[in-house]
């Protein structure tokens, strides 16, 4: 502890851990890439036919479109080309529009990330005080009320929450627009107005999950010996709860927070659809429906990558929150 040699050792261990992580990441990516490639092609439906439906079915038109999309090549060829491009960072082009998939994804990322972050912040703002309050009064009517609120948040379908908010804030009070998205850079106030209800929708759902988690963890932690020690020292109850119990409860809480962040990435489809937010969820669904293979493949890859990053972030949070993990990682 503290000596130069051990610090150097620790650095090397960290580098090794990082290298192992990167390797794992590469394996995950190629695995995800392959599974998505195969899954998409196992689903019936031809991208060329789906686009435009029966409106233009001339065989020559279709053959040309198919050749342009590279769909006239064999599956193995398509796979290898795609994998090769992926390694060099090129996710290909949309079959429908010919636009580089990277462009589409980069465009869809900011709204999804913003929505996810806002929703998580709302979820945290809701869940920390409510979860702690419920845990401190476990079994009381207040606890019951908070639990009911949380379960409502979890079990109410997001579209019901969303439409409820829309009727209230957009139709009844005309405070917010019903739907639509503006980039923050273009119009910060408009952006926040547009994102308020979607973020609240997801925030309430995720808040419900997080409240339950926080409550359970704080109750567990309050029963721990170190809490009794803190009380034995004469530490005030508020400090006992926040400085000791909540800080420890944060560890399992962060795990769920990470999971919820993952859900935000892919599970925001409904919210993005209702509020017309051109994010990753909608990009994915639109293009699954259209069988626009490269776009779906690219989006799934990016989502997988972000999942991995979120996991790394969660691990980082563990390291931050729990000295035992820090010690374990360097060992």
């Amino acid at each position, binding site marked *: 502890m503290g000596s130069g040699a051990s610090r150097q050792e620790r650095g090397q261990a960290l580098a090794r851990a990082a290298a192992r992580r990167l390797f794992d990441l590469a394996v995950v990516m190629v695995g995800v890439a392959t599974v998505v490639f195969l899954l998409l092609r196992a689903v019936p*439906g031809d991208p060329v036919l*789906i686009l435009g439906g029966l409106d233009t079915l001339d065989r020559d038109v279709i053959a040309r479109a198919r050749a342009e999309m590279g769909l006239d090549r064999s599956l193995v060829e398509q796979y290898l080309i795609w994998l090769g491009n992926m390694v060099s960072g090129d996710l290909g082009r949309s079959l429908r529009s010919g636009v580089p998939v990277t462009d589409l994804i980069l465009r869809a990322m900011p709204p999804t990330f913003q929505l996810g972050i806002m929703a998580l912040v709302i979820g945290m703002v809701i869940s920390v005080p409510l979860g702690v309050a419920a845990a401190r009064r476990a079994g009381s009517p207040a606890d019951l009320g908070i639990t009911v609120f949380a379960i409502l948040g979890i079990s109410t379908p997001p579209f019901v929450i969303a439409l409820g908010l829309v009727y209230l804030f957009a139709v009844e009070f005309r405070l917010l627009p019903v739907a639509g998205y503006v980039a923050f850079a273009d119009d910060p106030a408009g952006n926040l107005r547009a994102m308020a209800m979607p973020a609240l929708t997801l925030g309430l759902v995720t808040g419900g999950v997080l409240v339950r988690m926080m409550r359970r963890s704080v109750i567990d932690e309050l029963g721990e010996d170190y809490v009794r020690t803190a009380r034995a020292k004469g530490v005030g109850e508020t400090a006992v709860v926040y400085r000791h119990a909540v800080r420890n409860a944060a560890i399992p809480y962060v795990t769920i927070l990470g999971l919820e962040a993952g859900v935000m990435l892919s599970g925001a489809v409904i919210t993005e659809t209702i509020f017309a937010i051109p994010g990753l969820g909608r990009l994915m669904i*639109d293009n699954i429906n*259209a069988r626009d293979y490269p776009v779906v493949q690219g989006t799934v890859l990016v989502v997988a990558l972000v999942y991995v990053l979120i996991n790394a972030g969660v691990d980082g949070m563990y390291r931050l929150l729990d000295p035992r993990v820090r010690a374990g990682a360097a060992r």
Partner: protein
Amino acid sequence: MTRLDRRLFLKSATAGVAVAGSGWLAALRHPAHAATRGGTLVIGVPESFSSLDPFRRIGRLDYNAVINLLDTLVTYGPDAIPAPGLAESWERPDELTWRFRLREGVSFSDGTPFDAEAVVFCFGKIREGNFGGQFARITSVVATASHALEVRTSERFPTLLVELAQQYASMVSPAAVAAAGDGFGRMPVGSGPFRIESFDPGRELVMVRNEGWWRRDAEGVAMPYLDRVVWRVLPDAETAALSLSTGEIDFLYALPAPMAPMMAASPDITVSAAPTFGWEYLFFHCGQPPFDNVHARRAVQFAIDRQAIVDAVSFGTGTPASGPITPASWAFNRANPGGGLIAPRANPAAAKAELAAAGLADGFEMTMIHPTFPHLTAMAQAVQAQLAEVGIRVTLDGKEIGGVLDHLFASNFTCLLIDWGGRIDEALVFNSFFRTGGGNNFGKFNDAEIDALIDAAAAAATVEERARIYQEAELKLVAASPLAWISIPSELRALRKGISGFVNHGDYRLRAWQISRG
């Protein structure tokens, strides 16, 4: 519009269609309002745009945006009569040569002048594009003067003007194509009524008026009237409808049928409905039992109660089909739709007689493939119940649309329920669906007499003559029943009061240049 409103709730749909049909040609030619200039129209559209590259095979909504941005040499209204576009006039000195006189003083919105050289360039793009095959008969396109063009073909090309009126034959700025490269679908530059201000395919397409557009209205006033048109993607029907009711949008591009009555009840909103060129229909596989027997097909044809389906499944917004030609079409036989062979109501006695004639007096069993869209699923269930009445036992096989199309294209079905959007030009419909070997003839129907009529119609000199021949072909088609036409969907749109000039032609084309505020 009020006429159409009422129509929405008319129980007798055919009567309504007759009323609706009488005035729309006039409305197209002479917008009956003194148009106010200026203002923005916000349109809520139900899906993302894919690309606005006219030479690609793009979606219906994409094409609709394209007609508001790009001109074609020939224009072509729902009356199917080719009219001047960027080509002011044309002549055909011999069977294989066409000469076009181009409009002068027109520039693309990037300033590039429109001239014969530009058209030659565009022909190159068109023929490289997905639809290039349509123009395979063209052997040369030559600029004979700055605004004169000669097109030569290898064989007769009677539908050249029709093809030149399609979006895939749009005229675009050569300079812009060169500059944009692959990105052209994001920022197509043409000479149309509007030009793009900004485009985010999943979110919004903003168009602004092209001040120099060549086209005038009947009073000689420059079009378009609107300063801006915003096409906002609102994928959820519920929030789209709410956006209309709060006035965030002015125009709902696609109104789901179940919402129509509620929307129509709002004092601020007008609902517009018009029959389209499309159908909801059954494909029969005419090459294998039981539908290789015409009587089996006719039995189904007679067993279907179209009116009941329209009422129950389409919330009264559709029209019972009478044959392949729909009330939206210039070729529709208003006096005697489809020869009166297919009634809106089922005729179980006739159906049973046909079954007996097919040697299937006890009925038969079959599987019917259908897409799992809620509306078509409900329709499939209704058909199933109706066919059961005459002893035809149907097993439903609902599939996601991609899977349905796979089966359709492989002609791998006995009976398949589907819909399509239709084409203005009956030549394209008849050639594709009913001609032996036609592109959409997935049921392998063949009838030499009908083939001959289809060819004759294409060669006919006048619209009236073509309509007459198609009506004759329709009679034979209804008798031969390669398909069972069930209903004609309506194009349902909703707009806020105070929007004028919108005419619903049932052709899925919103012509924003005709619209004005106030």
